[in-house]
């Protein structure tokens, strides 16, 4: 039987025994934790852990991931600014409708990636769609980080009653499956906007709010766990002994140390949020057409899967590469930060 290499030491959260010890101390709620963190942890755990060491440059995989993300972001921003020589994403070219690579009707000249069922240029729709997908996902995660982070920090720093109350509030939201909660929030928020006559509210904002609210307890728990351990360090005690106020200690002493954990989870969170937008779009409550997003391009033409698969699989590929890149980078960041933390 081979000796397990030091590389194979499992990351926090994947380590069953460490969980058990924490459980015994009473700091770990049974079961719940594992399931809740699932969404993020699953992504975290998936990496080839520990294969990267300090001092080495980023691997080719990381550079590919960075390259792809940079490409997507630049395309999205330039398309939105109207700098790119793209066709109008909402203009229909009848001769091109449903045609494209792999389509049973063949391709149309002048449209490299073909058109959707309404004859709208796929390249233009994908480029403009990148903007919607990225802005919704990033906005939602930032929202979740600000609120989840604040709650997590407070719970982790004060502990005791405060911690118990905030943690059980998180648990309430975690008892509802994430997709269902997001669906319900979109429906309620859209209903609220409609019934107060504010139907002009950007539907993207509603999505950002809905996905953001769902991510609060998930991001909050991670912040809380990190804040909890940092708050017990000597320098926090020293600050308190010098008479610093809790807010100051939290912002000046605890937060800077918690930030790395929050940052590594941000990349994974954005990946999850992109998938969430796609899922909601398929269910008909994503970014509202005619504005394209990767998700709603798929959602609108799902019925054309057989004759014009390019309409579905081109945006699907965009989602796949983006999520893969984000997961990969998130993993790299996490691996590097873990090393730094253990060196303290």
């Amino acid at each position, binding site marked *: 039987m*081979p000796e397990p290499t030091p590389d194979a030491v499992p990351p926090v959260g994947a380590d069953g025994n460490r969980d058990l010890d924490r459980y015994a101390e009473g700091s770990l709620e049974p*079961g719940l934790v594992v399931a809740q963190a699932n969404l993020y942890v699953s992504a975290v755990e*998936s990496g080839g852990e520990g294969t990267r060491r300090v001092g080495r440059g980023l691997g080719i995989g990381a550079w590919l991931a960075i390259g792809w993300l940079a490409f997507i972001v630049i395309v999205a921003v330039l398309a939105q600014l109207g700098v790119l020589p793209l066709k109008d994403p909402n203009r229909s070219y009848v001769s091109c409708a449903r045609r494209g690579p792999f389509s049973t009707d063949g391709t149309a000249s002048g449209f490299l990636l073909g058109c959707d069922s309404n004859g709208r240029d796929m390249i233009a729709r994908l480029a403009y769609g990148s903007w919607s997908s990225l802005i919704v996902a990033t906005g939602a995660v930032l929202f979740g980080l600000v609120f989840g982070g604040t709650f997590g920090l407070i719970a982790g720093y004060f502990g005791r009653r405060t911690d118990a109350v905030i943690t059980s509030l998180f648990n309430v939201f975690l008892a509802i*499956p994430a997709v*269902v909660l997001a669906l319900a929030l979109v429906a*309620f928020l859209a209903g*609220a906007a409609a019934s107060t006559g504010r139907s002009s509210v950007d539907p993207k904002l509603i999505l950002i709010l809905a996905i953001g609210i769902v991510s609060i307890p998930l991001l909050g728990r991670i912040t809380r766990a990190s804040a909890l351990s940092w708050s017990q360090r000597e320098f926090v005690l020293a600050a308190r002994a010098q008479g610093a106020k809790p807010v100051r200690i939290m912002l000046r002493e605890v937060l800077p140390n918690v930030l790395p954990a929050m940052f590594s989870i941000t990349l994974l969170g954005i990946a999850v949020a992109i998938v969430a937008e796609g899922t909601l779009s398929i269910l008909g409550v994503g970014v509202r057409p005619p504005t394209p997003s990767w998700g709603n391009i798929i959602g609108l033409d799902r019925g054309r899967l057989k004759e014009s698969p390019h309409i579905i699989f081109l945006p699907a590929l965009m989602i796949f590469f983006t999520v893969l890149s984000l997961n990969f980078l998130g993993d790299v960041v996490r691996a590097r930060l873990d090393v730094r933390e253990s060196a303290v």
Partner: protein
Amino acid sequence: MAALRLIARRFLQLAVVLLLVTFFTFSLVRLLPGDPAKTIIPFGSDQQRAALAKDLGLDKPFLQQYVNYLGIPVIKSEGTTGLLQGNLGRKYSTNQPVGELIKQSLPVSIQLVIYAQLVALALAIPLGVLTAYRAGTRTDRAVNTTAFGFLALPNFVLALLLSYVIGARLKWLPTAGYEPGWLDPLFDSARTPSVEHLKYMVLPVITLAVGQVAIYMRLLRSDMIATLQENFITMAKAKGVPNRRILFRHALRPSSLTLLTVAGLNVGTLIGGAIVVEVIFGIPGMGTQIATAIAAREYVELQSYIFVLAFIFVLINFVVDFCYILLDPRIRRARADA
């Protein structure tokens, strides 16, 4: 005795979570600005609205409405029924009781999730054991890289991919539809199981299982690596026990605690995750019902679905906890001391 107190405390905690969930969904509907009857059924007739106002007791104060919704005996308004009496409200567009709809759709979803779990575990356990045994080798890295790739594949992309390649191109399996399975008759006598059932389930089950395999495999791998360093494994090796027996008989059981916990708790989450899969493959489960309810803005119906899902989640949580406490004496003792 101590274990009993522990269980009682967990039960209370979970009951509180459930209560707060109902309060949250209830408040969401009531706190929408404007006339609730109009918001709840925007496309309904005046008659339907009047029925709704009567059902919900909209003329009563907020807290009394909530009490009625829960159906707490003694303090609820006379002649009303709530959740405790099994009243899950009505779908206002068709006037069907939501309880009936759940009876028909929930078994379909649970069945799908059970299949997916079994397939996922059947694949993940051997893979987890293999990668732990060969930790750090090329096999380990190959399996991990593949799993990493699959994790980046959203459910709906995989569903559409399978449905295109295996359904539309190769024509091996149907791409949409449903035939009753073994769980359906338990709830709804109108359906009888058939062999066709399995054909319709293959693609959705694969879709749901693939994402789980990667997660379960990684969990088992890390626990297994820790277990393989224990003294009793060295002992077994010294005695000359064959590797296969050490892995599956000696090491697997103590390593599977985390895996089983996650797998158990995942059932609730998977029912939620199954929504998009059900919609894509046209399976008449809870997911399809939820999607329809959202599209039709059936808030009361939606409220009940959320309640049922949260209830399942909390129930499974409790059972898993219970098993945990029974299985691991360390937890029992530590908690009793606290």
